[in-house]
């Protein structure tokens, strides 16, 4: 199987099928990232598609110094930040409407449904950078170095954002009366 970089190289040389393959390979990852970030299926679809439109248009700018995946994530995250900023200006918060699917085996769930709801309500209220960092770290398995590359911030900042996010979230599951 050809690597992302090889496919991008072929696309740059004029093979449009190579671009198709890149989209097919990454569409799910980017869509679910967008859905986590925006919390709205229609907006996530638009953002995911727009990400690949930007990949198409800016492919010639990709120099291959970072991984293709990191580059695409950076595009998606930047688009979502712009989108969220526009939304916050309008005081819209669609994030609470995100439909979560419970674990396939309910017995394996470590928290009650109520705690889970509260947890995600809190996730959606995290500052934007903390939330993006959390999503990249938890759901995409990114290292701090990769997150720093996507967000364009120092590694230490990425780590601090993640720590801050977890500190806030664990309060939901901390037994009442305990000093945080």
């Amino acid at each position, binding site marked *: 199987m050809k690597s992302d970089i090889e496919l991008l190289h072929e696309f740059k040389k004029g093979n449009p099928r190579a671009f*198709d393959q890149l*989209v*097919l390979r990454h*569409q*799910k990852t980017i*869509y*679910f990232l967008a*859905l*986590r970030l925006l919390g709205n299926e229609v907006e996530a*679809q638009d953002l*995911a*598609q*727009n990400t*690949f*439109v*930007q990949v*198409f*248009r*800016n492919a010639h*700018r*990709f*120099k291959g*110094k*970072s991984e293709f995946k990191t*580059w695409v994530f*950076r*595009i998606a995250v*930047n688009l979502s*930040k*712009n989108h969220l*900023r*526009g939304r916050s*200006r309008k005081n819209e918060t669609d994030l609470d409407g995100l*439909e*979560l*699917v*419970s*674990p*396939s085996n309910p017995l*394996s*769930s*470590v*928290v009650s449904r109520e*705690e*889970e709801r509260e*947890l*995600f309500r809190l*996730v959606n209220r995290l500052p934007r950078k903390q939330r993006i960092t959390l999503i990249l770290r*938890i*759901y995409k398995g990114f290292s701090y170095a990769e997150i720093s*590359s996507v967000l*364009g911030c120092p590694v230490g900042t990425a780590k601090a954002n*993640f*720590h801050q996010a*977890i500190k806030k*979230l*664990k309060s939901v*599951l901390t*037994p009442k009366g*305990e000093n945080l």
Partner: protein
Amino acid sequence: MKCRKVKSLLLDFFEGELKEDTKKMLANHLVACTRCSDELKTIEKTLEALKSSGLKDPGEDFWDEFLLNVKKELSSQKPVRAKYRLFLWPKGATANLTSILFAEKVRYVSIGAIASVLLICLICLKLAFDPSEPRTQFKFAGRNLEEVILKEGYPPELIEDVLASSENAFLFSGGEIKKTSSLEIKELYSALSILVSRTEPLEDICYTTCGLLNGDKIFWEIEDLGMQEIEFVFEELRLRYPLT
């Protein structure tokens, strides 16, 4: 190791990010301290709860049409234009001019004319890009634009694009930007918006900046450009010129 210090390291401990000796010290503390070990359990539980939540898959039809929709989106947008397209050049003018210049009767005259035009162009280019000529220093929020871009870590080619765009905007807006004003950025953007209204074919940074200005998100706030808007523009720049 005190509880306060241990608590600050628990997440790193859980993620296996600690050095071996620190890990051992922390593990010893956890055996003896119930409060800290409970705190670790809460962190574990929080991360597991976050990880276990899934999202609804939109279904096969959605994925089948995804690529098609990307292509539709691409075909519905304006094609990327040539970077240095000649402004205000009428459509079809190139073809007409060529047919006239290379007609049998005027061929020899036209060869001379073309050579003269080329010579003039070369002189103009030489004058325009003479390194001894100091470049107009545009400022971005009171700071030198070039320095800002370098500090932000953008690739050097962006500087050329931004400066070229700024200069174009300056020229096409009638050259009335007050470079010493503290509101340079606003003026630069105003100039760029004038540029976009005068010349349709805009590309790259010029296009981006003007797009932001004319878009519903920024335009209404042009009278009140703050750091957020500047950050927004930089994010757009970052998108167009990803850091590598």
